[in-house]
């Protein structure tokens, strides 16, 4: 049995780290980081085989944050998991820091793919998955793609590729938080419906509440059981999840909280303002 209460506490710590790091940096992307917290927590604290003491262990599962601007959630999760000290989070986006504005596989322990230019991460994940299969290796590849990101044509080039070559060792979380920089996705450039698109491209499609650990685990188990096609887990999420004044507000896509707002946000998270699932 998984201890979801413990994971919920971990997720709260990761949320706090995201907010502290971005406020300390004075910039960054809290909104889309907060929407992916349960997904990354479930991956790094349960689903994925990783070794924080040996970040480049060949047998590890790989993770690609295709929506690279959500770097704060990746760094906060890696720090929480013990890949590096949480103190390092305070150097986010500073000159000389290993924690770049967008993920850099050559600078940060635990980062498997450099991303930031949207649409490329999923293709990169396809290459990793194909490489694992060529060598008969059992490690799996997980990727998180944004819903706004799926306006990039390259996402659908990669979707075609993964299905064509039956990359069943690839699992994608499509973070359906509904917002992009300029506003609601359906108003900026409607990428929906997501499930019908992925189905038409030949993927195994699952739709879940992306903040419910039980649903995340159940979907990941189903993805592992599917051996003939890649799986996409469309995760309904809330942008800015866990911070009352950030939730569902596009303006918090790429803006850090002020010091005063941070105090309010941290207090809200401490009070258990996050549902974190059933």
């Amino acid at each position, binding site marked *: 049995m998984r201890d979801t209460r413990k994971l919920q506490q971990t997720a709260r710590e990761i949320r706090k780290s995201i907010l502290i790091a971005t406020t300390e940096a004075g910039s960054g992307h809290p909104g889309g980081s907060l929407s992916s917290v349960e997904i990354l927590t479930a991956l790094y604290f349960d689903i994925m085989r990783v070794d924080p003491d040996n970040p480049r262990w060949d047998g590890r599962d790989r993770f690609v944050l295709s929506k690279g601007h959500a770097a704060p959630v990746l760094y906060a999760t890696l720090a929480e998991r013990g890949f590096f000290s949480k103190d390092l989070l305070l150097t986010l986006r500073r000159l000389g820091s290993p924690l770049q504005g967008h993920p850099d596989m*050559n600078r940060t322990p635990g980062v498997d793919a450099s991303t930031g230019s949207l649409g490329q991460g999923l293709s990169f994940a*396809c290459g990793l998955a194909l490489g694992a299969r060529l060598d008969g290796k059992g490690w799996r590849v997980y990727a998180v793609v944004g819903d706004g990101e799926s306006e990039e*044509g*390259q996402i659908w080039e990669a979707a075609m590729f993964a299905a064509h070559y039956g990359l069943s060792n690839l699992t994608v979380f499509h973070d359906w938080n509904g917002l992009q920089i300029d506003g609601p996705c359906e108003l900026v450039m409607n990428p929906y419906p997501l499930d019908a698109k992925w189905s038409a491209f030949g993927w195994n499609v699952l739709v879940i509440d992306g903040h419910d650990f039980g649903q995340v685990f159940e979907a990941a188990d189903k993805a592992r059981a599917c051996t003939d096609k890649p799986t996409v887990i469309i995760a309904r999420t809330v942008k800015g999840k866990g911070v009352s004044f950030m939730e569902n507000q596009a303006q918090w896509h790429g803006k850090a909280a002020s010091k005063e707002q941070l105090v309010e946000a941290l207090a809200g998270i401490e009070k258990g303002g996050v549902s974190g699932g059933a």
Partner: protein
Amino acid sequence: MKATRQAYGETLVELGRENPDVVVLDADLSASTMTRMFGKAFPDRFFNVGIAEQNLMSVAGGLAAAGKTVFASTFAIFATGRAFDQVRVSIAHNRLDVKIAATHSGLTVGEDGASHQALEDIALMRVLPNMTVVVPADATEAAQAVRAAAAQPGPFYIRLGRPPVPMLFGPEYRFVLGRATVLRQGTGVVVFATGHMVAVALEAAGILWGEGISAGVVNVSTIKPLDVETIVAAAKRCGAAVTVEEHSIIGGLGSAVAEALCENFPVPLVRVGVRDVFGESGKPAELLKAYGLSADGVVNACREVTKRK
């Protein structure tokens, strides 16, 4: 006569036999890029991504991150223009072991015209950190350059051509990565040439010697890292220089040589290449002549530049 792309296809098959980690990707042009030869020999290690060059480059990066030596092929303009950001972010920035072997570069694509004639690709790849840029002059050099790229980890851009071109080098020739080769010593003017234009430069030098102008020829097959030492030494010896390339005079060999000479030993210089215009349809030989990329064009440039000494 043999096309550099033909040598590429043959060498890939040899590499596939020697190294099980060599994987080849193509974007629906495998008959033209000659990667089909590898695909037939090693179907388990050949992947067609379809007409999707962005995906081609990022998948190549992922495969390299999984430990593979990846050759990714398509036409030069699609590899470098259409997928520039993917080459930059998914490959070059990460220093991943991807060899972009692009065919159908330059005007000699011929009848397909401007959309398919890459005249900017050297500039686009040369500007990227971590990228090594190689432009073989003939099939012998192409085969050896492909081998050199496979042997050295990291991103490469290998510029290959469509038409059969004269064999300049015999089997005894040894390509050395990063080394420009003096093919003909001169004292009056030196012609720095790359790719298909090396043969043209040699022809031009022959004509100039007949006129009493001592013209040297240097094959600059590695554009990056540039062999500044050899280039400066030749400029010192001759006191005047011409560059010739099947590429825009902006950003390619001409620019690279101008940068090196201006910083080290400025001499009068004329750049022969496509003069900031797009190409058009025509037969390869007709196009080269029309755009001044013929022996006559190089001879005229040499006469002009020696007057400025």
